[in-house]
Structure formats: structure tokens, C-alpha cells
């Protein structure tokens, strides 16, 4: 309770309330996440329920267009799926993939960073060299190649079933080096502190020291990076799905929906692409705006 009061009285919260952009972004993000998480409850239709789909319903324009249909507010896609419902479920998939991918990258990167920073020497040199080399390649390229390799290695049927996990793995593996670099840097600083030496003197195992003592102290910057990378991971997923190496049309994410809609751009069914596209852009834009504000709020020098 007291912590809450302190939070609402803080400069941090004050700068949030003074900044309409940050407030609007937080609102948009909350709507996107809320709509996605509660899609089964809120969505007017269930786009995965094949029985309810009818090709008769396909290509219905949005309700506000001349020959629109009030039962499908923003129209239907080529399969006759209600687009609003498909977008809500699609956002759910996108956020799920991005969040798990970042969680994976965070775990992997933090572990490697801790080990490299704490042990130092050859281990450190090798691990960081790998991170450096990987960092020279854009994450999307790494994710693309990892996905392609897994496609070749895994049996076809197994790959199709595991598609979403393959995607999460590919995006996560492409984003670990940033976490590792940051954690290593902080670990190097923490390692020299008295409390770590004290822990070493009383004979705690390196593992205990790393997880119990250093980790909590290096987590701050990690969480900031995780937030900023979440927006990027959403884009990674959308891009991969758009390129056709991500999720299949049977389990559409935002990227998949845009890819489907792209096929009908020239025949006039613009809404199939535009609405998922706008959702994606609004979500990533609000994450970026919040990130921007957060960085300025945490760095008073820039004010």
C-alpha cells in the first residue's frame, strides 16, 4: 500500500501523467493486450471453429462500406472468417510467440552473460566472441536461417506440428546476444563488489553466488532491454510469417493475416491487409513510444 502511494507520488508517475503520448500509448497497448488475452471471451466469432466458417461469407467488406454487413464490423477474409475475431486471435498468437521468444532469449542470454562475466578468462572470450559475431548479423536473418535449417532437419510432419515452437526458438536464438552482453557488463561490475567477495570468503558455490547474489542486482537493465525487444520480436514474428516461413494460415498470427490479405490487394479487398496491418503498427508503435518515454523518464539528463 505504502509502495503504491509512493509510486503515485513519484517523479516517474508524474512525468507519465504529464505526457499525453505516453498515456495514449499505454492505453492502446492495454487495449491490444486485453483484446488478445481475452479473445475467446470478447471476439464475436471463433475463427478456429471450422464448422462455423462458410465460403459464402468470404470477402464481406467492412460494415461502414456501401455493401457492408453489420454482422462483420470490419469484414471477412477469403475463408469467410470474421476479420475482427481473426485479428484478436491473431494478436494473441503474435504476443504469445513474441513473449515466449523474449523469455527464451532472456534466459539464455542472462545465463551466458552471468557465466561469462563471473568466470572470465577463456570461457568469457569464446562466449562473447560468438555473441559479437552473431550481433553483426541482423536478428531477422538469423531467425530466418535457423528456421530454414530446422525445416530441413526435422521431419516434415513433426515440423508442421511444432511450427509455433520452431518460430519461438528461431526468434529467441536470434536475440540472446544483447542480453548476454548487458548482463556480462553488469556482472563484471558486481563481481568486484564487497558483497560478492564476502560470499566467496564464506565459501558459497559459484552457482549460488551467481544466481542468489549477482543475478538480482543485474536484472534491472535486463528488463528494460526485454521490454524494448518485445516490440522487435512482434515484428520478427510478423515478418517471418509474412515471408511464409512462420505460422501457417490455419493458425494465423497478424503477419499471416497480412500475408493472406496481400494476395487480394489488387482485386480490391484492401481491408484484409489493412486492418491487421494497422493493428500491428499501432501495437508496435505504442511499445516504441512507451519505450522512448521510459528512457527519457529514467534519464533525467535529457529533460
Amino acid at each position, binding site marked *: 500500500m505504502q509502495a503504491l502511494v509512493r509510486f503515485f507520488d513519484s517523479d516517474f508517475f508524474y512525468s507519465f501523467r504529464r505526457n499525453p503520448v505516453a498515456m495514449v500509448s499505454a492505453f492502446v497497448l492495454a487495449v491490444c493486450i486485453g483484446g488478445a488475452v481475452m479473445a475467446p471471451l470478447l471476439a464475436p466469432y471463433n475463427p478456429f471453429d471450422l464448422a462455423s466458417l462458410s465460403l459464402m461469407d468470404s470477402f464481406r467488406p467492412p460494415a461502414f462500406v456501401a455493401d457492408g454487413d453489420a454482422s462483420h464490423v470490419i469484414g471477412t477474409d477469403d475463408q469467410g472468417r470474421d476479420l475482427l475475431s481473426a485479428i484478436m486471435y491473431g494478436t494473441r498468437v503474435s504476443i504469445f510467440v513474441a513473449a515466449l521468444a523474449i523469455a527464451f532469449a532472456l534466459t539464455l542470454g542472462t545465463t551466458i552473460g552471468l557465466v561469462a562475466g563471473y568466470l572470465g578468462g577463456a570461457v568469457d572470450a569464446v562466449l562473447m566472441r560468438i555473441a559479437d559475431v552473431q550481433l553483426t548479423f*541482423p536478428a531477422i536473418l538469423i531467425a*530466418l536461417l535457423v528456421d530454414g535449417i530446422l*525445416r530441413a532437419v526435422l521431419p516434415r510432419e513433426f515440423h508442421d506440428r511444432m511450427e509455433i515452437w520452431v518460430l519461438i526458438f528461431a526468434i529467441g536464438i536470434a536475440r540472446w546476444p544483447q542480453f548476454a552482453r548487458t548482463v556480462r557488463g553488469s556482472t563484471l561490475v558486481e563481481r568486484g563488489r564487497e558483497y560478492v567477495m564476502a560470499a566467496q570468503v564464506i565459501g558459497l558455490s559459484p552457482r549460488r553466488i551467481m544466481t542468489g547474489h549477482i543475478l538480482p542486482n543485474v536484472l534491472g537493465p535486463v528488463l528494460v532491454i526485454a521490454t524494448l525487444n518485445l516490440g522487435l520480436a512482434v515484428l520478427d514474428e510478423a*515478418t517471418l510469417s509474412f515471408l511464409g516461413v512462420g505460422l501457417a494460415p490455419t493458425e494465423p498470427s497478424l503477419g499471416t493475416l497480412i500475408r493472406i490479405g496481400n494476395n487480394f490487394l489488387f482485386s480490391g479487398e484492401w481491408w484484409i491487409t489493412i486492418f491487421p496491418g494497422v493493428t500491428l503498427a499501432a501495437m508496435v508503435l505504442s511499445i516504441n513510444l512507451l519505450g522512448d518515454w521510459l528512457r527519457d523518464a529514467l534519464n533525467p539528463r535529457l529533460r
Partner: protein
Amino acid sequence: MFAFIIARLFQAVPVLLAVAAISFAMFAYVGDPVTQMLGQDFTEAQRQTLVKTLGLDQPFWVQYSRFVWAALHGEFGLSFRLAKPVGSLILERMPATLELASVAALLALSVGVPMGVYTGLRRNGLLSRVFMVLSLVGVSLPTFLIGILLILVFAVLLGWLPSFGRGTLVQVGGWSTGLLTLSGLKALILPAVTLGMFQMTLIMRLVRAEMLEVLRSDYIKFARARGLSQRAIHFGHALRNTLVPVITVVGLQLGGLLAFSIVTETVFQWPGMGLLLIQSIAVADIPVMSTYLLLISVMFVTINLIVDLLYYAVDPRLRIGRGGGGRH
């Protein structure tokens, strides 16, 4: 200077060899090339012969050094999908990608840097705020969506520009260029804008951030205290110091352009290396993937080398071997 280049080259070699090893591992152990090449019916004897001719019975390092040796001679094996030498497949498509990427890079730099400088100097001006909001939109819109929107507006609705392909090409030596015909140039506009947009906004934001950082520095305050003109402070002192970190990131970003051209090429059906890669990934055509990885690495290393040289030209602190050397 010369020693500097040599040193940088030597640092690049292990990286390239490591990438080559990954590339080779993919080539040799992923997706079973033997089965792929033999097709449906084969005898064990045929299989053995092929294994021998391909040298797959040799130890890893022998195979690996053969692979590197062949790669140095431009031989990368056959594409599973098209049954053609991968080297020439990729080479055919390289001009398309390089033209697209360099025009996009030029666009990103020539618009991004001035906008960054402007927004850095007039940080509270109306136009700066507009630029900043636009840039955030640019960073948040995924490349493929920008492409789709541009196609929708300029190709579908207005019908001004083509939405796919390279237009009429002209052969100059072995290089097929679209830069010399009107239709080629028109076809280039949308893809180049799409590809350059993200980097442009990124460069602008980076230049602005660096500019603000530099303007707060002590030497800029001291330059003001010395009574130098606004112009000398902004463009003589601040801009040059801004460029030092910007060069590195921009260099990496230009590498990013090559990767993101995959997306742009898919949207615009641009017949470059990226489109080839996507088509190959869809059917797990490993030789094309591994060769692409190798070639892209070579390009990245080259770009990094150029960046280092630029760095060297801009920042005197790197020109060691004169005077005291030590900083404090």
C-alpha cells in the same frame, strides 16, 4: 594506415572461417545431399559411389578444407531445387540486390543525416516534433507493411509506379542493370523507398541522439565560451563528433539493408538474392542457404572494413604511433 588494414583483415579471417564452418556443417550434415541427389530409386552401390565422389567419407577437416577451397573458387555445389550450380544462381541475382540495397542506402543517408542534424539542433521546433513522430511511425511499421501500403497507394490506387519486377534491364559486361532505363528506374522507386525507410528513420534518430549528447559535452560549452560562431560550433565541432559513433552504426545498418532486402524483394517480387533465399528456405534447399550465408558474411566483413577505415579517417585518437599515445 597499411598496417591497420592488414590487421583488420587478419581479424576478419577467423570470423569468415567460423561462418564457413557453420555454412559447411549445414551443407554436409543437414538434409542429406546424397538422398536428395539420387532421387527415388538407387542401389547401395550407387549410394557408395556418390558418397565417394562427393568425398563424404573423408574426415571433417578434409571435407571442410575442400569446401573452403572450392568456395574460394566460386564452387558451392548444386541447388537441390533447381539442380543448377549455386554459385551462378546467386551471382545472376546479385546485381538486382546490390542495386536495390545501394540506392536504398543512399536514400537513407542523404535524407536521414540532415533530418537528424536538424532535429538535434532545433529540438523543440514544430518541424522537429513532426519529424520525430514520423520517424517513430517509420521505426514501428514493419518493412513489408510499408511496401504493401506503398503498393496500395502508388500502384493500385494511383497507378503511377509498377508494383513488381525490375522493368527493362540493360547488360553492362556481366552486370544486368535497371539504372539505365526509365522503366528500370521507375521499378526501383517503391522497393528502394520501402527498404530505405527503416534505416532512414533509424539514422535520423541516431544522429539526433548523438547530436544532443555532443551538444551537452564540455568541449562544445568551451567552444561557446571561446565565442565561436553558431555555425562553426554546430557544423564544425558538433557534427564531426557526432559522425564518429554514427559511422559504426550506419555501417552495421547497411549490412542490415542486405538482410532486409529479403523482405522487400518478396513484397515486390524483385528477382534478387533475397527472393532466391526465401524460395530456397521454403523447400529446405540447403546449398543455396549455406552459400547465401557465406556470401552475406563476406559482404558484412567488407562493409565493416570500410567502416573501420572511415573511422580511422575521422578520429585521430585511432592513429596510434605518434606522440604520447596514452590518454591520461
